[in-house]
């Protein structure tokens, strides 16, 4: 999985604040993505032949199928990470989960969009209700829209991690049920059975499609790395903010105490008495916040 190969410059090199989430490796990957897209377009539009039946619109396959694979990969990452959130109780995996969901949602959206556009000239319809893969993808898409919407409204990081993990897993478990119900509902699927295994595709077409997978995998990895780092930075920003808030809170304590000294009888301590200055040694061991 891409996350484990996410580049860290070792030994750790400190970065300039504000320099973003890029590292040398991720920048190289980014350049490779751009080059990959350009080469893919050359192969897809210039070097490959049009299909006999579908004519030129078959060139859609080089983005549609890789989008589908990338979308599902994102959701698989979210599902695995959600299991890990519940099992290992780790926010690290929560960051992975949300990264997978967001990118998975993007690519699933692109798969649906390209599918709709491709369906019009080939199946003569924008939308086919009975198509199993289409409906399953749509339901998965909606579940993860809900997942991301839900994450926005839960304030506590720990509660958010656990509950959204439940939502993600329930959504995944739901996939086979959706699949089954659509299949029974109207088994008039228009999707071709896997064109890859039938060997129907020509060599160069197959090669270009494989190249599409590689290019999309690189784009996916680049996005996952950067989205993960953003999630990581969000946690760190919270931690930094927390330290400031704690300092403020302690200052507030001082103010409260000063208040009590200045106005004995009101506020905190009505019996402001001489032994205020020192805690009773025989008492339970207390101290205020770390000095």
């Amino acid at each position, binding site marked *: 999985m891409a996350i484990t190969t996410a580049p860290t410059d070792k030994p750790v090199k400190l970065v300039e604040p504000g320099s973003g*989430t890029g590292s040398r490796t991720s920048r190289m990957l980014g350049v490779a993505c751009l080059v990959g897209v350009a080469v893919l377009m050359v192969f897809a539009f210039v070097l490959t032949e049009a299909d006999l039946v579908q004519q030129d*619109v078959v060139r859609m396959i080089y983005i549609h199928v890789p989008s589908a694979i990338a979308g599902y990969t994102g959701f698989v990452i979210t599902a695995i990470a959600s299991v890990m959130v519940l099992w290992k109780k*780790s926010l690290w995996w929560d960051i992975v989960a949300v990264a997978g969901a967001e990118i998975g949602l993007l690519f699933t959206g*692109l798969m649906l969009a390209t599918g709709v556009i491709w369906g019009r000239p080939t199946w003569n319809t924008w939308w086919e209700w009975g198509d199993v893969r289409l409906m399953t993808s749509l339901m998965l898409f909606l579940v993860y829209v809900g997942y991301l919407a839900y994450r926005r409204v839960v304030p506590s990081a720990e509660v958010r*991690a656990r509950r959204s993990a439940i939502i993600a897993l329930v959504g995944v478990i739901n996939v086979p049920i959706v699949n089954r119900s659509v299949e029974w509902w109207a088994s008039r699927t228009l999707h071709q059975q896997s064109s890859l295994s039938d060997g129907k595709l020509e060599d160069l077409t197959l090669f270009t499609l494989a190249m599409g997978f590689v290019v999309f995998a690189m*784009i996916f990895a680049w996005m996952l790395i950067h989205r993960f780092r*953003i999630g990581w930075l969000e946690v760190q920003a919270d931690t930094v903010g927390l330290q400031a808030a704690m300092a403020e809170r302690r200052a507030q304590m001082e103010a409260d105490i000063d208040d009590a000294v200045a106005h004995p009888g009101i506020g905190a301590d009505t019996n402001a008495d001489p032994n205020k200055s020192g805690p009773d040694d025989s008492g339970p061991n207390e101290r205020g916040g770390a000095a």
Partner: protein
Amino acid sequence: MTHLGYLIAGWGIVLVAMALYAVSLARRGRELSARVPAERQRWMTTPDDADTAGFVR
């Protein structure tokens, strides 16, 4: 080339959406990294203090 409109629409949507998302990622990263001190920007290593990513108990 047949179906040029469909192809432009499909490829266009994919490339534009991916580019926009990539740009938004870069911008969010830039904004956030300005708020976080450098020693906390090590993505894979966990700083030693307790209040970092993880509610491991």
